[in-house]
């Protein structure tokens, strides 16, 4: 055995070996669960610019935690100091030992360097390295101290509610919390004996009695090694599996691998890439307004990972996408929900023969207007759109004027993918045969479906995009009224499809738009989203009222939205005026 060995290294060694073996087994198993398409995508894209962008993303997210910084500076600092600090401790430690020792050396030398190398002038810049390593240790320790504080008072890092962890996670967390104070202690003892510390460990070392240090040096290093070993062994079974998995997940995502409708190896990577940071909890409407425990994405993924998924949890989600917008890892949370909602026994060939008789209208030179089911409950929107079409002399085919075939998205969200596909097939057939060049829809649910789930050869627009285009091209002349309005971003249109700019620009043209507290990605769900079938009307009302009071905070004259469902939801609340973008545009058309 080399001179760089001492029995206290053994717990650390066992930990590392167990960690590597378990991780390899898991990763290989998950990779084998990928389907052929996913595997081909990886091989095809591995040598491309995507690989570089994955490296960049890894540095920005896995090490620096940019998205967490955006949420709260202290929270970002806490995460990045532990991740980046520890990473640098390992890297700089390895460089230091590489320069100091030219002969054969074991891989753990960087971890226990101070114990084995006492000469503080072993090489030219040895002093510098000693100070730099101390600085890094201080950096990590500051993060750990912040984590201690966060566990007592989480509001300091901007979190109202933190995760309720399972016992195993708490155990691993305490091991992690012990590692760095123990490292400080052991290096200080060694510094007391051999004067080889940096500015931090040497100062502490000078305060320690020589005999005390002599007695406690080995026990301290042993405890440090034990803490490391314990953490490594618990890592693959706890939330800390995300440390490696997140990096692999970023690469898979950047290389273009995506979720399937069924659970695949990619889902397994996603489940383990969740660090259970709890950022998704605070803004989940089901937590914020209803205090429902255990349904948020973090708990849903955890239960799924530990193979005890509960059906009622999978079903209890509004699918408002708020957690997806918040998630610092960028997990595809909604697809995983849908995968778990898949109703295999019920999702058989449906009884939709009745739609087969519907014939397309010859629409060459026309556009299609697809109002969507929900718009038929808000005739004002349909009336506004038909008026606008007539105003600009646009010939159109009102595809679902008398009889509506649903777009299929509501079925898909509830886990009926075969039945949803039947509706999509018929709609696609009608649209293709009509010969129209463009499809305008008034419902963001249909819009998202046409955009993402259909593969239509023609352009698809939401009516806000279309009106925006008309205004830009000068076809539609509008006056400006003197109302003050607020705009509510519908989940499906905003977070779902990224349409934030067009409705706002339209409103700025025709009226005075006030800013609200929860805008764009941070928009609040109206509570009526079709994603959830579990909560009752009373609970929906609570969520709706919360969104409503946030919108009414600045006393606007009316609330404007771009979704028939949101409009209906707010309309039910009170006699407060709620209008769709199309309606307010129609009112302000200048008639020549």
């Amino acid at each position, binding site marked *: 055995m080399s001179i760089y060995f001492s029995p206290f290294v053994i717990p650390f060694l066992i930990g590392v070996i167990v960690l590597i073996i378990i991780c390899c087994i898991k990763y290989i198993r998950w990779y084998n669960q990928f389907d052929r398409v996913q595997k081909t995508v990886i091989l095809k894209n591995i040598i491309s610019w995507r690989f570089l962008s994955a490296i960049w993303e890894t540095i920005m997210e896995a090490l620096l935690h940019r998205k967490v910084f955006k949420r709260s500076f202290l929270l970002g600092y806490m995460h990045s100091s532990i991740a980046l600090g520890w990473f640098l401790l390992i890297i700089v430690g390895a460089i230091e030992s590489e320069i100091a020792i030219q002969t054969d050396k074991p891989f753990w030398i960087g971890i226990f360097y101070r114990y084995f190398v006492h000469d503080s002038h072993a090489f030219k810049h040895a002093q510098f390295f000693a100070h730099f390593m101390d600085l890094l240790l201080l950096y990590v320790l500051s993060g750990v101290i912040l984590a201690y504080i966060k566990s007592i008072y989480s509001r300091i890092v901007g979190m109202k509610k933190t995760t309720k962890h399972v016992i195993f996670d708490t155990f691993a967390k305490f091991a992690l919390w012990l590692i760095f104070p123990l490292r400080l202690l052991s290096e200080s003892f060694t510094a007391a004996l051999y004067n080889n510390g940096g500015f931090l460990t040497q100062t502490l070392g000078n305060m320690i009695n020589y005999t005390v240090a002599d007695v406690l040096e080995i026990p301290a290093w042993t405890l440090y090694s034990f803490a490391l070993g314990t953490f490594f062994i618990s890592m693959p079974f706890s939330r800390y599996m995300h440390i490696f998995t997140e990096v692999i997940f970023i690469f898979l995502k950047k290389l273009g691998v995506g979720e399937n409708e069924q659970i695949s190896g990619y889902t397994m990577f996603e489940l383990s890439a969740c660090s259970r940071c709890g950022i998704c909890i605070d803004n989940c409407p089901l937590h914020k307004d209803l205090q429902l425990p255990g349904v948020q994405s973090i708990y849903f993924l955890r239960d799924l990972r530990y193979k005890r998924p509960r059906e009622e949890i999978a079903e209890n989600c509004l699918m408002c996408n708020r957690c997806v917008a918040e998630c610092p890892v960028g997990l595809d949370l909604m697809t995983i929900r849908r995968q778990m909602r898949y*109703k295999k*026994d*019920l999702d*058989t060939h*449906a*009884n*939709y023969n*009745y*739609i087969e*008789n*519907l014939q397309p209208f010859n629409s060459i030179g026309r556009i299609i207007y697809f109002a969507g*089911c*929900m718009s*038929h*409950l808000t005739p004002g929107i349909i009336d506004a759109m038909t008026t606008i079409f007539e105003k600009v002399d646009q010939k159109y085919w009102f595809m679902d004027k*008398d*009889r*509506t*075939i*649903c777009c*299929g998205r*509501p*079925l898909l969200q*509830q886990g*009926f993918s075969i039945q949803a596909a039947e*509706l999509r097939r018929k709609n696609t057939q009608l649209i293709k045969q009509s010969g129209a060049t463009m499809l305008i829809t008034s419902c963001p649910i249909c819009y998202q479906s046409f955009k993402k789930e259909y593969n239509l050869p023609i352009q698809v627009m939401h009516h806000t995009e279309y009106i925006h285009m008309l205004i830009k091209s000068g076809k539609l002349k509008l006056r400006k009224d003197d109302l003050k309005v607020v705009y509510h971003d519908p989940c499906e249109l905003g977070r779902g499809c990224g349409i934030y700019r067009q409705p706002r620009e339209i409103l700025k043209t025709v009226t005075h738009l006030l800013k609200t507290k929860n805008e764009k990605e941070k928009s609040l769900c109206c509570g*009526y989203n*079709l994603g959830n*079938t*579990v909560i*009752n*009307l*009373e609970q929906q009302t609570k969520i709706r009222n919360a969104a409503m009071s946030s919108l009414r905070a600045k006393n606007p004259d009316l609330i404007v939205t771009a979704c028939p*469902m949101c409009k*209906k939801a707010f309309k039910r609340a009170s006699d407060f005026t709620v209008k769709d973008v199309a309606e307010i545009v129609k009112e302000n058309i200048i008639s020549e």
Partner: protein
Amino acid sequence: MIKFGFNISETRAINLEDCDLENVKKLHREVSSFKLCVSCGACSATCSARQFTDFNIRKIHASFRRGQYAGLQEELKACMLCGKCTLVCPRGVNLRSMIINMRKILLESNKK
């Protein structure tokens, strides 16, 4: 006899003692709003599937509640789950959930 263009359905007698209401109880456990229905028919009036065919969710609801499950499983498959019925219901019955759970319960009981 004069033909008026409609006919009167035969009188039906349902013997409640012969009805198996186990499924109704099960549905009530899953969707508690199910019994709030006052049979106003707003759901059927707005139903997208109803525009094409004689699918009638109000009737299905009534039959289910009386324990007459025959044929319902197949009929329910005509629903597109678009959610208009849930939105117009004046009593706050969670119809989408009701339909999904009816299908689940009927599938289970038909398997037996």
